Every structure is written in C-alpha cells, then in structure tokens.
C-alpha cells in the first residue's frame, strides 16, 4: 500500500476491515458526506464535465490553484450527483476525500486500480464499480491537461 497517499491508504484500510454489508454502509456514509457544489458551479453547470460511464448522472470539475500550474499546485475536485443515486455519490465522496487538496503530482500518482482495492466488487458488482474508475480517469486527465496547457 506504499503507493497510496495517507488518506487513500486509510480509506482502503477502513473498507478492508469491514464485512461486505458494512462496506455498503460506509459507501452510503461517503455518499451522504459528499459536499454540495460551490455556487460558481451550480450557477454554471456548463463548467462541469459529464461522466457517462456512471450508472446515474454524474458531473465533475477540477481546479488547480495556480494560474501557471506546476506539479506542486494544489488540486480542488468537485462532484455533483443526485441524491437518488447514492452509489454514484458514494464513489464521488470517496474520490473527493481522497483527491481534494492533493498536489497535481500526487493526484497523477494515484494508481488507476484504486477502485478495485476497496473490496466493493462483489458488494456492488464490477459493472457499477466501472463508474468510479471512469471518474478517477477523468480527474487525472483534467489535471494532466492543466499541467500541459
């Protein structure tokens, strides 16, 4: 687990310590703790990128702190998903806690297979988990683009 940030490591360990049923409860907690979007996004939904791989509508946005971002710039990550889609919101909640506030280099270093390390494949089905992988891929792509822009 040395390739994970401390936050991600802790999340992975939390899930690993639970039974499958409890993992779903934890996922629901993440869903409920997903922060609302700041007004600058709710007023301008066109700034958000849709993630059609998710089971239910999910939108995300990524911001880097500096005008000329570097690998050390802090990354802010925002997600929006309806309350009627708690699984998708839960995935977003995990990624928000794990990624928001990391540096660009740290975000890019997050392993792509993190969604598969949460022990959720059997509890929620691999098909549903694909949505989380898609969110992570898109966040990383956005950070990459910001660095090379």
């Amino acid at each position, binding site marked *: 687990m040395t390739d994970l940030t401390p936050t991600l490591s802790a999340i992975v360990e939390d899930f690993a310590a639970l039974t499958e049923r409890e993992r779903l409860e934890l996922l629901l907690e993440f869903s409920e703790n997903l922060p609302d979007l700041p007004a600058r996004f709710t007023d301008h939904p066109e700034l958000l990128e849709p993630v059609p791989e998710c*089971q239910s509508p999910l939108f995300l946005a990524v911001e880097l702190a500096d005008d000329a971002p570097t690998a050390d710039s802090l990354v802010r990550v925002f997600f929006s998903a309806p309350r*009627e889609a708690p699984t998708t919101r839960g995935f977003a909640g995990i990624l928000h806690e794990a990624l928001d506030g990391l540096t660009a280099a740290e975000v890019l270093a997050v392993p792509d297979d993190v969604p598969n390390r949460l022990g959720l494949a059997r509890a929620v089905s691999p098909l549903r988990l694909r949505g989380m992988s898609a969110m992570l891929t898109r966040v990383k792509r956005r950070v990459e683009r910001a660095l090379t822009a």
Partner: protein
Amino acid sequence: MALPVDPNPRLAQYTHPERLVTTEWLAANLGRDGLVVVESDEDILVYATGHIPGAVHIDWQTELNDPVVRDYVDGAGFAALCGAKGIARETTVGIYGDKSNWWAAYALWVFTLFGHPDVRLLDGGRDLWIADGRELTRVAPATTPSEYPVVARDDAPYRVFRDEVRAAIGRIPLIDVRSPAEYTGERTHMPDYPDEGALRGGHIPTAASVPWARAAAADGTFKARAELEEIYLAGAGLSADREAIAYCRIGERSSHTWFVLRFLLGLPKVRNYDGSWTEWGSSVGVPIVQGEAPGSIEAA
C-alpha cells in the same frame, strides 16, 4: 394464503388486476401476515437511504444474477434468496422500485420464471409512494427466514434466447423498447448511461420501436388500458392470439413492457429477450438494421 386482490376499480380495466397494487392498498396492508414487500432498484444503495416500512431488499445484479455465468440464479439459489428474505412459496410478494419500476418489473419477471404464484407490482413504484407523502424508514425489517422449496426455473413460457429470436424474425412481432437513438443505431446505450458493451448499433430486423416509457403516465403509474391498446395493439400490431418478443439493452426496460403486455393487456404468449442488445449487438453474423425503418425479413 395469498392476500385478497386490491379492489381498486382503476385496476379492474386490466386483464390481470391481481398483478398490480396501488399505493393505498399497500399502505393499508403493510405488516400483514403473508405479505412480503420487496424493493428492487437500479442503484444498490437507494433502499438503504429509506424504504417502505418492513420492505426487504433484492438487488438485481448481486442477488438475481448468477455471479459467473450470464444467467439468473438457479432453483437452489432462488430458494436460498427467498428463504433469507422471509418469502415462502405461498407468500404474496409486492415489488416496487426506482426508475419507474424497471428493476421491480425485472425482479417480478425473474420471480415468474420460478413460477412464484402471487407476485405483484406496486403501480407507480417508489417515486409515487414518496410523492404521496408516505412513510419511508431506515429501520431494517425484522425478517424471519422461511423455507422456500427448490423449484426449477422454467424459462420457456417467458424468456427467449438469441437463436430463437433469430428464427422468429418475420414470423413473430418484435418490440424494441429502447430510446429512438439506440433503435436507429446512433448509439449503443442510453444517454447518460454506461456503455455495457455492444459492438454494433441498430435493431433486430422487423422490430417495431416502442420505447418503454410510452406505457407510463407522468406519475409513473401505468396508462389506462385504452391507451395501452392504442400503442401496442393498434400501433405495433400485437394481438392476444400471437406470440410477441420484447427486448432492450439488458432486459430490464423490456421487463417493464413485458409486464404491460402479459398482465395488463393479457397477451399470453409474450416473452422477454433478456440477452437483448448487449448480446445481439455483439454477436457475430446476426442481421442488424440501422435507421428508423424496421427493416424486413430479407435483411435477415
């Protein structure tokens, strides 16, 4: 003992009113012996955010599908599932769910494959229950495990497989219940939905396009019988004396249409092709038509 049928006169217009219950009936019968209420949603966590008091949860992916083979659980698996949920063979099962009851209808269809005698759908589903202002709870139901017999699944009357569908082209009416863009081949999955992997877009030759939502009223309940007859009998050319096959992408939306045709309009020979577009659109060599025209038997 099965519970009495919902006497609501609105249900009497349908061929099998005993397959449907209103929110009023369900609210009045909650907690009665012999009734188990089942919630079945697209999203596995929706139930945990609040459900009808006493309702148990059945998930289509992790509980109704076989974990390895693309198929449903077998008789032993279904018996174990029902037993754990407190469902006995003689239990009246009332199913409701999110998304206009897609997954509830899908679960009801699977219960039908096992010949469960009394399984009913909540007209309007979860959304109408909430819109009515009725109670939801997070309190887990007190479930007493039951003995459910191992009954072999009998697919033949209700389920159809790819090769039978191919042989049916030009002989049996096919109903494609997906969105128009999926039908024409512009896209292989629903807008805003994951692509579950069809390699080609389009529809099965001769299939009529009747999107599932045409059967639903604005509040999620089923439309009146006269409207349904206009859509499916006059419009799509189905009739009670002929077979019919409904399909969509993975068999969930077509379960909704199957329910309408089988129980509301009383077409006894309608079957669901659950392989649907994710199978057909990825199969080697099967005929496909693109565009708005159904296409002909020659295309096959």
